[in-house]
């Protein structure tokens, strides 16, 4: 009898846990229920502001990077002390973030303040979903747009109006495992390296038994992997008018063939291994000697015991002609145009854009800040890595991450089409041409 009672209690508690788990992931269910379509995600988005209606003066801030969450919350708390309004971060991972935002935008219930990204910003700005900050910035004595990196400000400008305030800037750099370099007797990467030196080093760092690879390419994120090589080799991804793909440019193909060579020769783990684990996890678990990663990963690598002890960072290698490019990007702080409390939202954004807050963001090691001259604080924010590698990339040729109005469509298409080239079913040249053709078609539709 006793056993049965205990069991039923156990079952009941598991049930409740299960239910809680479900409410954490309602999106999956909503999406699997084909007919419900947007109804449920919209309701989800609605739930967030609805909760706050009680307290009246709480602001929800949506972000997608859990690594940055503690630091961002600290900044929000500082603002709360000044304004007396509570602000709370909600972390929703990258994929779901845009689904939720899209549903919220269609249903008229966006979070109060949220991150904007160049992949999506155009559509949101053109449809008037973001709060127009132009006049507010002009009237503010704390914000002067000339203090931020110009290209990032420009990402969030449409028709001469400004819809988001720059939050950060990122650069890509070469992360390497010192222990593995020492073991193989290879010199650490330095500023003189070309991609060919990189290739030679990767060759020495790869073990035949499959326990260690020289390099892992992050096939899911072009910005921190092959985009840099493409531009180093003199190629491009998209032309300035956003009308034509550069994937069939001979130089682009050359760069992509470089990656192909690394995979074919087994210096990179095969696609199966990368996709199941992710390049950063392989690096963090001591399976690969080098990865190219963005500065947004610093907090993650710092908090990982293994990378903290064994790894460091250097500038990216150069192309054959000595060209060194960093594909960079920066997020913006945006607010909902139809938010309930747009004044508070602006006050928060304004605060986050001030020199003090931007400096603190850098000092906390959250990310490099978009405010010029704050990067040194970021370099000093961790003592386990020499972040100069990332900082020096700011002096390289900066190319803003290629984007167009509907970037996701052709980015996902490219990821899908390149799989055949990574696995060796077709040659890289063929894949590049296919991608270019398909990308041109989708650009024509934009």
């Amino acid at each position, binding site marked *: 009898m006793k056993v049965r009672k205990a069991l039923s209690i156990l079952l009941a508690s598991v049930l409740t846990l299960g239910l809680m788990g479900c409410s954490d992931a309602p999106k*999956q269910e909503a999406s699997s229920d084909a007919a419900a379509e947007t109804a449920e995600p919209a309701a989800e988005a609605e739930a967030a502001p609805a909760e706050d209606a009680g307290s009246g003066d709480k602001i929800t801030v949506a972000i997608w990077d859990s690594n940055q969450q503690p630091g961002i919350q600290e900044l929000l708390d500082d603002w709360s002390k000044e304004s007396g309004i509570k602000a709370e971060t909600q972390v929703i991972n990258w994929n779901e973030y845009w689904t939720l935002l899209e549903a919220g935008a269609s249903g008229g219930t966006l979070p109060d303040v949220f991150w904007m990204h160049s992949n999506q910003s155009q559509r949101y700005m053109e449809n008037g979903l973001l709060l127009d900050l132009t006049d507010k910035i002009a009237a503010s004595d704390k914000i002067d747009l000339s203090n931020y990196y110009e290209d990032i400000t420009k990402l969030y400008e449409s028709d001469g109006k400004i819809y988001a305030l720059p939050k950060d800037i990122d650069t890509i750099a070469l992360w390497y495992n010192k222990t593995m370099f020492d073991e193989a007797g290879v010199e650490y990467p330095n500023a003189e390296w070309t991609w060919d030196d990189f290739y030679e080093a990767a060759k020495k760092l790869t073990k035949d038994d499959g326990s260690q690879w020289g390099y892992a390419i992050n096939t899911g994120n072009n910005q921190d992997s092959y985009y840099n090589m493409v531009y180093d080799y003199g190629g491009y991804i998209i032309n300035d008018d956003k009308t034509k793909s550069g994937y069939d440019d001979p130089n682009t193909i050359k760069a992509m063939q470089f990656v192909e060579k690394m995979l074919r020769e087994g210096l990179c783990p095969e696609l199966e291994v990368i996709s199941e684990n992710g390049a950063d996890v392989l690096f963090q678990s001591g399976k690969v000697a080098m990865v190219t990663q963005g500065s947004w990963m610093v907090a993650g690598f710092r908090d990982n015991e293994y990378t903290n002890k064994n790894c460091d960072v250097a500038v990216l290698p150069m192309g054959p002609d000595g060209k060194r490019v960093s594909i960079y990007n920066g997020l913006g702080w945006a607010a909902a145009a139809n938010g309930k409390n747009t004044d508070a939202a602006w006050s928060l954004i304004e605060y986050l854009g001030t020199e003090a807050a931007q400096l603190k963001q850098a000092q906390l090691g959250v990310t490099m800040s978009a405010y010029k001259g704050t990067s040194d604080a970021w370099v000093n924010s961790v003592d386990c890595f020499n972040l100069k590698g990332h900082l020096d990339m700011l002096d390289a040729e900066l190319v803003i991450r290629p984007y167009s109005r509907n970037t996701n469509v052709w980015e996902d298409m490219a990821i899908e089409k390149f799989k055949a080239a990574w696995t060796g079913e077709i040659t890289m040249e063929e894949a590049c041409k296919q991608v270019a053709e398909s990308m041109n078609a989708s650009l024509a539709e934009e």
Partner: protein
Amino acid sequence: MKKELNAKTTSREKSEFIWGWLLILPTIIGLLILNIIPIFQTIYQSFFKTCDFGKGNIFVGFDNYSKMFQDQAVWQALWNTIRYAIVEVPISIILALILAVFLNRKMRGKTIYRTIFFLPMVAAPAAIAMVWRWLYNSEFGLINHIIGHKINWISNPDSAIYSIAVIGIWSIVGYNMVLFLAGLQEVPRDYYEAASIDGASGMHQFFNITVPLISPTIFFVAVTRVIGAFQVFDLIYMVMDKTNPALQKTQSLVYLFYRYSFTEANKGYGSAIIVLLLFVILFITIIQLIAQKKWVHYN
């Protein structure tokens, strides 16, 4: 009888009628708002080229459909979905039936076993998928660690869908089992006693008494599971990364719908895909309803 007493019971019948409707009203409203209206909205939307955030949609007639019929990915996804269903539904039903028969006997710890088998049902699907993803991992996964071989369970295009189906079977088998257990309670004991006296073996009893007598339950489970299997999404979404080389050969129709509708913001095309799924499910269910006359026995 009722008809004869018609005049006397009108007021009672009337109140029964009202109460009956009142009691099912919440369900009806829920069905209407959450299922039926969206179905028609989805069909309607599938004739449009949808623009950003649902504003300014352009009517395009059957364009989405003609694009869909030429889209290799859609047919591949349909085939993936069918392969998933072919594996998941029969195996989960057979396993559940066997388990139910064993757990219907008098034995020690029966409740514990029932609880254990039912547990996957109460866990969040997303959590289940995450755990299995790591079990299957080719580098660090427990399964490969135990068998000592490196097998790409979820990134081999030829077999990944079956690995996903195994998760599906594992999650659903307990639920099916509970339904079968309920069905087994309806089977009178004396049938078995009579069969034993006549010398029928356990196997004979199972196929000649148990299966025919709970065939209505089997039919119900089969219909609902086929529909469920055709709507598979969360397992694939959670287990398969978008860089996975096996994704093309694994993604289901609902996954494709999700990608087009939400990632690529092309809701019109996504709707067309889901309408295709609706008709596929409708077709299969109708066939099942017709076929049941041959094998389902109602007392």
